[in-house]
């Protein structure tokens, strides 16, 4: 059993070291295809990687490379065609309370207030305790939504909804938290704010986190480890350890040489992948190639 039953986000380093591997996810030789016969589409092919314990692993890859498919496999809503996925040594057979997945599509319940949404997890499990309610208040404060606790999701701005969603996931204090592009569609300003919120929450809890994104800056700012996906059929092409010090601050991270080195390395890998699908005629890849050349010339100039 896990030793960490305290619901505070203040997991100490002692409790971290005492639960080695409990939250580690190993994905080995996983393939996933949809359709049958001639129409088979292989989305993920022979993909292997590890999501290490108590680290923030970020996966980045071109759009459509099978990231969300992988998330559905990790969540247990779908099964791999071949290969297996294990959490703490035990195979994943279905959705479970040990993993908390925040899917790409926003899913705050519109019929519940912000507070009720955040308390949904504890309530569903029959843990509507004072401790959890305090925790909800704390998280509301932390994500800056205290004044909006009694509002319904449609009354919140997009960024507030994302923050509420984060809080709704964090309160369950899951062994593993899996997030699929949680900050998609936000403007730069709120995105950067969200990164700091999220990094702050992570730094307090140091739980195992798996974060999927298509944004390289986001990836580098957040990651302990960075997994770079290949084009479809998806595979992990490279792993980069991002050893920037924590707590991270935006200005600081993007001025550091190390961050820029990591960024250039990741971009050149992604660039290769994008070129592959560009020659295959993908419009998204063309955009990416263009954006890339702009960025790298900027990086060289600066």
């Amino acid at each position, binding site marked *: 059993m896990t030793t960490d039953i305290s619901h505070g986000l203040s997991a100490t380093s002692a409790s971290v070291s005492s639960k080695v591997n409990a939250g580690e996810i190993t994905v080995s030789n996983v393939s996933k295809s949809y359709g049958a016969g001639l129409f088979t589409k292989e989305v993920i092919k022979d993909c292997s990687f590890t999501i290490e314990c108590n680290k923030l692993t970020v996966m980045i890859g071109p759009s459509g490379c099978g990231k969300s498919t992988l998330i559905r496999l990790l969540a247990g809503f779908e099964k791999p065609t071949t290969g297996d996925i294990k959490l703490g040594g035990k195979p994943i057979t279905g959705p479970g*309370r040990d993993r*908390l997945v925040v899917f790409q*599509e926003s*899913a705050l*319940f*519109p019929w519940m207030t912000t507070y009720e949404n955040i308390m*949904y997890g504890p309530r*569903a499990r029959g843990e509507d305790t004072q401790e959890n309610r305090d925790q909800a208040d704390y998280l509301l404060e932390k994500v800056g939504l205290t004044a909006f606790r009694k509002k319904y999701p449609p009354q919140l701005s997009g960024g507030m909804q994302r923050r509420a969603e984060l809080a709704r996931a964090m309160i369950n204090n899951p062994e593993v938290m899996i997030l699929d592009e949680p900050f998609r569609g936000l403007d730069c300003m709120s995105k950067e704010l969200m990164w700091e919120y999220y990094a702050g929450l992570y730094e307090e809890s140091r739980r195992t986190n798996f974060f999927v994104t298509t944004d390289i800056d986001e990836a580098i700012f957040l990651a302990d480890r960075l997994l770079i996906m290949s084009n479809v059929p998806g595979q992990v092409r490279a792993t980069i350890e991002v050893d920037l010090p924590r707590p991270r601050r935006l200005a600081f991270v993007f001025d550091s040489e190390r961050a820029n080195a990591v960024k250039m390395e990741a971009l050149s890998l992604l660039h290769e992948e994008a070129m592959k699908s560009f020659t295959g005629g993908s419009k998204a890849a063309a955009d990416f190639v263009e954006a890339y050349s702009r960025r790298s010339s900027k990086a060289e100039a600066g």
Partner: protein
Amino acid sequence: MDQLVTLLKRAMPFQMVPDDTLKAIAGLAKYESHAQGDVIYHIGDYADDIYIVSSGSVQHTLGIGTQATHLDKTMRSGDVFGWAAVLENQRSRLAKTVCLERTELIRINGEDLINLFKASPALGDVVMSRFATMINKEFTLPEAVAAQVPHFTQAQATMATMATGLTLTMFRVSQWLKSPKPYLMLIGFSILLGIWYFTVEVWKLPRFEDMPGLTVVVKELFSKDPTYGLSLYTPEYYQHVWVSLRRIGIAFFLATILGVPLGLFLGWSKTFREYVFPVFETLRPIPILAWVPLAILMFSGSETPVIYLTFLASFFATALNTMLGVETIDESYSRAASCLGASKWQTFREVIVPGAMPFIFTGLQISIGVAWFSLVAGEMVSGQFGLGYVINTSYTMVRYPTIVIGMVTLGAVGYTTSAMVRMAGDYMMQWRVRELALGGR
């Protein structure tokens, strides 16, 4: 002036306020300067103004009775106190404030401030909710005190925080009266009545001359001694309305308590749907009138067949819409619920049911409409009393004005019942009311 705006911007309640409104607020502000040891106000003093510290510091000591966790607090530049002046039902000071050094303050009359926000209620609500947060979190007072900040209920944007079914309806009515709609509607009705009046009574067009004229019907309806025995002054009139309403009530009630669960299960469980849906879809398209003979054979008396027919039509509409409602719920909601640890049954109760609610109420609107339709059909064929019966017998007994009285009554009563269903829906789905109010509808 600019200095004032910068100061206001630093004050917690005004942080979200745009510059031009800040300028308006700054226009209300008065500047004053105090020496060390000056008492700005005592507990129980009349609370008229709020204060913002510009420079210096002020000791703020809440009274014991306020149940604050921390009574003492030092106010520094940018801090706001004296907020009792914006609370509702609170006209006296809750704290004593003493200047700890030479201090410069600005004061703003609480009432003026609230009046200022009446023009932009949405913003007012934001500011007031920040006041509430501040009172609760920074001054550690119980939420009950914080909750006394005013809400700007009358306005559209604040529907979002306050709307209940009733206030929303009242709001809609007042908005409606302000729009050109009622007058266009009056014109529409006048045209209809005009055509009726002229074709029947003035021009006496062929085939129209047998029809009851407008004046005849109106006179009959309001006559204390009606020629054909039915008017607003005869008890029979109300008896017919009551009988029809009772039948509708029973049938609609049964259709709802059976149709909604059926629809929910049809939408939720694939297996259940495979058993039941084909049967359902075979029976549903059969017109209600085709059921009349069987209904009379199946049920004795005149009351039950009519209720049965009414029920049937309602039931199909309700169940089908509920099922569609369940099908349209985004799967990501159920996925989110199960990730958060909800069981299958919990997901059903807490996601499927509320998620389908908007469709259920659309279904109930349709259901009440078809209920009236089949009620009249049923009453015309079998049954005694009821508005359908009135219309049918008046035809056979050549009491033509009474036919129209029956029809008009059906229109009015039918409209009222569907309005009631809509209000019930608004009341039960306040999250949706707020969503719509926000969408400006």
